[in-house]
């Protein structure tokens, strides 16, 4: 019993909630780049947690061009679509309620789409040699690397349905046997698409006040699947 009393204060101390800092206004920036366009959304959150809509929001692109960001009430954010340029975008918001806040947002524009190289089955049949792949074997899809990309999304479709998705940092993926359905000659049509992506920042907006992501897709590659 005596031993228990000695431990209890320690446990109580451990259960004390951490002290939270006083609420401060803060800015969050989402930068989404697809192809040659950059979609910017800047959310200004007041100390009470409500979005502030009356601020002057601006962004300076890596070339120094200044753009105003109008407030879009439907999104609760200051938004703009701009030409995408690799580099740092400097965002500033100035309001009577929150004062001046800023965030530097790095943007990486992916310029070279991944190039789908081949689809090969476990027996060695390759669509690049205009052969049909077998549904009963694993199927390997390969593509070229996209400079700046940190992951790839492989999407596999057959008969209008999305039958598999794979996210990987590699430039290939192996689909398990049976992922696709084969049919008698000339086979069942299927296609693969790869989207390269790069992401910077923090999706939770804690370690960074921004989330910057870029994507670029390759043209799909079609092929025939036999049993």
């Amino acid at each position, binding site marked *: 019993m005596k031993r228990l009393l000695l431990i209890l204060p320690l446990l109580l101390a451990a259960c004390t909630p951490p002290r939270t800092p006083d609420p401060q206004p803060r800015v969050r920036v989402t930068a989404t780049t697809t192809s040659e366009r950059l979609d910017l959304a800047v959310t200004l959150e007041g100390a009470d947690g409500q979005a502030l809509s009356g601020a002057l929001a601006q962004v300076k692109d890596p070339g120094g061009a200044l753009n105003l960001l109008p407030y879009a009430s439907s999104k609760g954010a200051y938004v703009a679509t701009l030409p995408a340029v690799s580099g740092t975008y400097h965002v500033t918001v100035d309001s009577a309620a929150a004062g001046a806040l800023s965030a530097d947002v790095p943007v990486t524009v992916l310029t070279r789409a991944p*190039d789908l190289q081949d689809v*090969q089955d*476990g*027996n060695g049949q390759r669509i*690049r040699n205009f052969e049909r792949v077998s549904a009963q074997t*694993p199927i390997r899809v*390969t593509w070229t690397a996209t400079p700046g990309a940190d992951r790839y999304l492989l999407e596999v479709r057959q008969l209008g349905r999305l039958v598999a998705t794979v996210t990987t940092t*590699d430039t290939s993926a192996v689909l398990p046997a049976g992922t696709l359905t084969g049919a008698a000659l*000339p086979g069942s049509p299927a296609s693969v698409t790869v989207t390269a992506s790069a992401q910077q920042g923090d999706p939770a907006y804690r370690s960074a006040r921004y989330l910057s992501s870029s994507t670029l897709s390759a043209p799909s590659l079609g092929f025939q699947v036999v049993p």
Partner: protein
Amino acid sequence: MTRLCTALLPALLLGACAAPTPPVTITFPLPGARVSNPVQVDASAPVTWRVDGQPAGTGRHWSGPLPPGPHTVTAQGPREQASLTLTVLDDAPPGEIRTLTPDAQGAVHLSAGTFDLILGNPGPATVTTLATAQVSARPTAATWQAQLDARTRALLRTPQRPAGQGRLTAQTTAPLERTFQVPNLQDAGVTPVPATLIYAGTHVAAYAESGTDLQAAAQVARTFDERLLPREQRLFGQVSDVDADGRVLLLFTPRLNAAQVAVGFFNPADLLARSADNPHSNEAELLYLGAPDAADFNFTPASLTATACHEAQHLIHFAHKTLPRLADAEPPIEDLAVSEGFAHLAEDLCGYGTLGGNVAFVARFLARGPQVSLDGTDLTGGADTAERRGAMYTFLRRQYERQADPATWLRQVSTSSGVGLDNVARAGGARVDALLSDWWWTVALAGRDAPGARAYQPTGTDPDTGDTTGLNLTAGVVPLPGGLSVTLRGYPGSEAFPGALPGRGFAYRRVQGPVTLTVPRGLTLQVLGR
């Protein structure tokens, strides 16, 4: 096991309760696979790779070239290993065509030997591989047919309906005089042209503007009516009959001879009802032809007869693909390149491959070889060029010869809602890149000891016209009417690959190995071992 772990909850023991590591497996390929270089192998977890007992690196994947023959690949995990035996195929076995897969640096390596190579552009746009390449970004002036095509597309952006809707009685008697609204060939205007009936047959009625050699024109109409249009309809399908007269109309006019921009044409707007957008429709199946002139190769009776077949194919294609779908939000209109290719194929199938001038288009294509696009813009900025028409005709002739049932294939292409090369391939149950590869090699190997299947069928003689049917790309000097001739000596070989390739274009060369080649991004390199 679960109960034991609960009882032994202390953290130090949790590690011992984790699921056992699954054994390493080779997930790709299957044992006994017959694979091409570069060989690609995958494991279920990072491993140490050995190939034929030799260290080959670490990781989940291994890829690299291996000599032809059997090999044993071993994946060594932390506690166990997996292995498989596979057979690596020769990269370029004699007599077989393979697509070479470049390594990470874009290079391919060929061992000792003689190889035929094709560098092809499977995409629709020009790929430039050298900064010094001469590529014109400025399109050349649109041809008359391209202008008509653009006008048709513009017209169909607004709702249209077929001509003759609501007509209750058939008009089987052709009027003796009729005024046609003829599009000007120099501008976008229209000229009313009075014409006289010179022939009325079973399927065709022909009119002529003054200044036309009536006897020669009537003979063209009779030949087209009695032999060619029935043959063409058996192949491509029936013509429409928006005016319920049961006939296709031919209008012979010297205006085309004077303009020298077209031997004939079909205006799709004539099949559509007159409206504010389309005030000058003739509301009839109407083909415009120049006046017969034996002294001008383009306007000889044979050339005009072939042109009637050509324009009738445009009519049939539009009547089957577009006319029934006018109510669609975007009615399909055949791509100009494919449309013209089929029209030239129709000339061939009507028995006018040489007399009609197809051979001259093919000669132009062969002369410019790698500069010519199949269905896009060539390296000089030209689109609907004689060279491109020659290329597309050779492509479609090859597809026609490969079909088990050519007439069914032709009708599938024209009646389906799809357009372009994709639709051509789909109608035959094939992929565009496979058809392109087959066509590239069939053209390139003409006269170069091609493997059996990579050749056009032997040419023949049309029983009606006596003209050559089919294609011989190395026929040499081919005489044409009027004392003219063209020369067919096959597809040109290159000493080096060009710095740019237009859409669907290709270059051919022969090399001696061993050699390392770079495959430019966006292009495909295919090899035939000799």
